[in-house]
């Protein structure tokens, strides 16, 4: 198979680099074999997820079959009834979207300050944000749990188990992540741009919103997608901080297992349904994401 240069523009440089014929045979064969193995490794669970979600229950309970003997869409109907999946979906959506939105808005201001001004305490702030982001979630879980329970008792507010409390806990990871990525992205935008706006009489906020934010749209998209994905997949906090009414998908999906039986076909169907929005978003915005990541991280 001759290698055609139908490449992504991102790899234009790589394509220009060597003419396809210059690749040694040993390299081409290594590439074929290794990439095939990796593709099989990656795709097998995905295939199982899709194929099993289309099988009747008897077939996922017995010995595994590669090819379904019959296809059914019933699991996709049943998932909404076996557990209140719709409610879990809504909870996940509210919590992830709120945590992401709050973080990104707050981070825009913080990143502006950090990337455009020098002031006392800036380094302390950036180091704090950086290090809190590396700490394990379990470190924050116990105290936050305790604080919510105790503050709730003292004030009579039902904090523990509420969506608001969960949103706040999710910000323990979405906020530092957003501040860092955005500060990196802002720093990669030439200062002349907003400097000119200041000179033209915009206030600092005008420079931020009329110049810097529009220029940073790819970075903001990347941060939003990233935060949302992270929050959508979060398990640790959700396992402790939610109750029946506020349960999110990450914990709710365990409801397809009863004492005696697991509805594997429904588990797979539900997994697929909850994955589609984020995977689609990720793959569609992959380019922005890589741009945002590299502005923040790699360079």
């Amino acid at each position, binding site marked *: 198979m001759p290698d055609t240069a139908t490449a992504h523009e991102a790899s234009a440089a790589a394509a220009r680099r060597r003419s396809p014929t210059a690749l040694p045979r040993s390299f081409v064969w290594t590439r074929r074999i290794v990439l095939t193995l990796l593709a099989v490794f990656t795709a097998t669970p995905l295939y199982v997820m899709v194929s099993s979600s289309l099988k009747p229950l008897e077939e996922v309970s017995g010995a595994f079959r590669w090819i379904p003997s019959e296809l059914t869409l019933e699991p996709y109907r049943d998932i909404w009834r076996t557990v209140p999946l719709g409610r879990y979906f809504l909870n996940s959506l509210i919590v992830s979207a709120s945590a992401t939105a709050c973080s990104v808005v707050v981070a825009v201001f913080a990143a502006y300050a950090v990337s455009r001004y020098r002031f006392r305490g800036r380094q302390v702030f950036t180091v704090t944000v950086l290090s809190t982001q590396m700490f394990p979630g379990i470190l924050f879980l116990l105290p936050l749990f305790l604080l919510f329970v105790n503050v709730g008792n003292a004030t009579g507010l039902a904090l523990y188990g509420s969506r608001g409390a969960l949103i706040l806990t999710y910000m323990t990871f979405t906020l530092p992540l957003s501040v860092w990525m955005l500060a990196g992205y802002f720093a990669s935008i030439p200062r002349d741009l907003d400097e000119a706006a200041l000179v033209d009489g915009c206030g600092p906020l005008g420079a931020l919103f009329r110049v810097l934010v529009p220029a940073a749209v790819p970075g903001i998209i990347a941060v939003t997608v990233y935060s949302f994905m992270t929050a959508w997949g979060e398990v640790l906090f959700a396992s402790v901080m939610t109750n029946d009414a506020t349960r999110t998908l990450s914990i709710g*999906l365990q409801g397809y297992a009863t004492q005696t039986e697991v509805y594997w076909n429904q588990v797979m169907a539900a997994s697929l349904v909850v994955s589609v929005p984020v995977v689609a978003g990720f793959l569609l915005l992959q380019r922005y994401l890589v741009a945002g990541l590299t502005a923040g991280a790699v360079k």
Partner: protein
Amino acid sequence: MTRAVTADSAPRTPAPPAGDTARRPTRAAADRIPAPAPEHPPAGPGRPAPPRAKRPAAGSPLRDRVRSAGLPYLLLLPALALELLIHLVPMATGIVMAFKDLTQEYISDWSAAPWAGPDNFRVAVDFDAPVGEALLRSFAVTCGFTVLAVGLSWLLGVTAAILMQDAFRGRGLLRALFLTPYALPVYAAVITWSFLLQHDNGLLNHVLHDQLGLTDSKPFWLVGDNSFVALLLVAVWRTWPFAFLLLTAALQNVSADLYEASALDGAGMWRQIRHITLPALRPVNQVLVLVLFLWTFNDFNVPFVLFGKSAPQSADLVSLHIYQSSFVTWDFGAGAAMSVLLLLFLLLVTAGYLLLTNRGRGAADA
């Protein structure tokens, strides 16, 4: 798991030029960092660029100065307040908790819990007693798991990134496929794996036992010693795409001239990989390995979804262990003490790693 993703993006962020605050320690007022080049974009004809001081907003010089000094703090205020609320207060609380005898009866009124002094720590590191012994074993398992998972993820990531550097038919599709495990919500991916690893109706046993006949009987993957292998398999499947993503991005920044020059010198493909590609990846590797380490070492999601609240001993990662020590036995004091120890360990390793790799890099550059 994803939370650390960004930890990665973080460390190398081209943070504002370091030290510019330090250079002017006496100056209280905040300065806008000047653009590197003094010339402003050409002002249009008939619109001479006014000097900055004549900005329309200017009030009295003093008020202006105070306002501009306060501005960055004002911008930071929401972030600072939240940082305080969600990070600093809980961390301080966590440290206090570690010195309290905080068992179930005190959870709803924690200030009433008696002080325990260093008892919680003493119990946690008393390796002859059951609690300390279990913690030590969990720590050892986590270390072994981390080394293997990070090593394998990096290896797969770098291999795929290098092999996919040159265009070939279907590359875009393959890249999307490789990134999918990383984009999936953790729990959806891990639940799928737990189905694959089921004893009776799982794919793995079907292939190993029924189809290939490699084992005499179907092994259990989610209990007993095999669970370590299962955990490793799932973790690598989920983690390597991230290494791939970051390394692919890094490879796009390697100058094509380098390859052309070395090709003129007669360097073959494999030599180019060894002498150009791999060295070019060094700075990214430094961050990547650290981030993968922190993620993997702290991983809670994968073992929790795979095994439930109490993992088999051979796959009892330390985050899950602390979780279990806290929420299954409701001994928050012990859990908090273990968290503090974990934090100290992570700080130590991170600092040591950065020192070591920075020095190594400095020596290599010299």
